[in-house]
């Protein structure tokens, strides 16, 4: 990685020509050099490994689609994939149920309260992954608060070791991805439209359903797709809160890699998961412009807090 030292020594702004724009397209600027270290790092850690795994999965140099066909015919992968999709849908529903009202109220409170609500939604995002999952184990296990609470009603609900518990724990940390696109979508809706509707005699429910909901739909779709997509790739939560009998796609991927050492099959499955993810994210991005939201989620706490 000899390129790394260039990061600190190459100087950013070149001696500036009088014009800062217009000339950019004709002559390549030395600014491209500043991208080299970052691209090199990404190349070593992500792009090159992805390429290698992909080539392996198609059996380079002589091409074959066998590893991909096996995914459909081995009887396991598809079942696990379906279970993963079901779980992701459950996560999305939970996140939407909490996220929509939450984002709505965020648009209706003062700036100070809004900052508080934003920080609260980001708390799970900031807390250590392992600490969070450990906490969920404590809460969901037999004899834990959820189980004891259900016994008050004569039930015996244990959400530890099944998909429901996994979904609850996933939704908690994915909520920012629902709330932030929704917040920006709902914030842009002119509330006077609702007042106008009320003034013309519509009930609050009709006003909401006919006016507010259609206007918020882009943000809703973006949030739904984003949460759904991100839950497809979760590994730690299902590994700790779920069971091997009900494993999700990420666990299958890990198992094929480290236990079965089936690098060709794992590579093929990894590519499928990656393509599904990128397609869905690009779609969400087209609708609601939210990929940057992921970065913003992380850094927003610093910008929003006033």
């Amino acid at each position, binding site marked *: 990685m000899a390129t790394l030292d260039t990061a600190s020594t190459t100087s*950013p*702004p070149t001696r500036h020509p009088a014009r800062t724009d217009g000339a950019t397209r004709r002559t390549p600027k030395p600014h491209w050099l500043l991208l080299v*270290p970052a691209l090199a*790092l990404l190349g070593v850690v992500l792009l090159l490994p992805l390429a290698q*795994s992909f080539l392996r999965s198609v059996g380079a140099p002589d091409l074959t689609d066998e590893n991909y066909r096996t995914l459909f015919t081995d009887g396991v992968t598809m079942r696990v994939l379906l279970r993963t999709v079901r779980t992701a849908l459950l996560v999305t529903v939970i996140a939407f149920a909490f996220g929509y009202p939450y984002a709505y109220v965020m648009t209706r409170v003062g700036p100070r309260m809004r900052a508080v609500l934003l920080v609260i939604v980001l708390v799970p995002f900031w807390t250590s992954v392992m600490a969070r999952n450990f906490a969920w184990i404590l809460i969901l296990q037999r004899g834990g608060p959820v189980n004891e609470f259900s016994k008050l009603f004569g039930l015996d609900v244990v959400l530890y070791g099944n998909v429901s518990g996994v979904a609850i724990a996933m939704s908690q940390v994915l909520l920012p991805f629902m709330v932030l696109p929704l917040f920006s979508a709902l914030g842009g809706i002119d509330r006077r439209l609702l007042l106008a509707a009320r003034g013309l005699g519509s*009930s609050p429910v009709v006003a909401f359903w006919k*006016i507010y909901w259609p206007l918020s739909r882009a943000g809703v779709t973006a949030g739904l797709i984003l949460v759904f997509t991100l839950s497809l790739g979760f590994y730690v939560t299902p590994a700790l809160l779920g069971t091997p009998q009900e494993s999700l796609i990420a666990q299958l991927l*890990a198992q094929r890699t480290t236990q079965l050492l089936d690098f060709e099959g794992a590579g093929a499955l*990894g590519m499928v998961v990656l393509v599904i993810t990128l397609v869905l994210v690009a779609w969400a991005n087209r609708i609601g412009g939210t990929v940057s939201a992921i970065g913003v989620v992380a*850094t927003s706490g610093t910008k929003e807090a006033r």
Partner: protein
Amino acid sequence: MTATELDVPAAPAPPRARRRSRGVDAVPWWLRLVVAAGALYFVLPTLFVIPMSFSSSTTFSFPPEGFSLQLYRNFFTDPVWLTSLRNSFVVALVAATLATLVGTAAAVGLHHLTGRLARLARTVLMISIVTPGIVIAVVVYISFLKWHLVGSFAGYVLAHAALGMPFVLVSVTSALSGFDSKLLRASASLGATPLRTFTRVTMPLISRGIVTGAVFAFVTSFDEVVIALFLRSPTFQTLPVQMFNSVTFEVDPTIAATSSLVVSAVTVVCLVPLLLGSRRKNR
């Protein structure tokens, strides 16, 4: 887009009779309730680990029994936990430094570039944020095995730096968006070399973006567990991996003490940019 005259009987219509001082457009109480429940759902689970960390029990049983500092004592006396902590800290420090250097350079470079190719470059640099962690972990593991980087310090640092870099890119880019490039020309016309211009003019103005990015890169690395699980070796593992072991193989309640320590530490670290931000703003 007109409101229909449909007269649907609405459930939560407020009584028309008495005008209360509340506005016609107030947030209804049941929504406040939903938000309160949501807030609890976000915050409460994490707080569970704190009482657990003072338990004297040797299992994960809840509620905690007794009151002792036994678990903290375990953590601070067990070489396995301490070594993992040290590894995590050093890896995060080096990875965050690396991520900050390359991420800041890339952000400055992209700030001056326009056009389709630059947009593509930005997208490529951001791609690791939307790539599922497990996919990164698997392909990195397969390639790093070949390159003998699995279980090595360098392997951890490279992988974690690549994960943290997009956060640096985002935060420095947003800091640069408020940066007036006339200053660069002013500086150059006064005879400063580009490097001097960067260190004397650009850096101070975007320092908050750089610090924020660096903090996030550090936390990202310190907390990363999926890739770390694949890269671990008997001789080198990080704290989250040890926490994972303690839940899966060992049933070691020391994780409760570790969790509450990590949660407190990360909270403090995350508050630093917040406080820096608010101090600047409250001029």
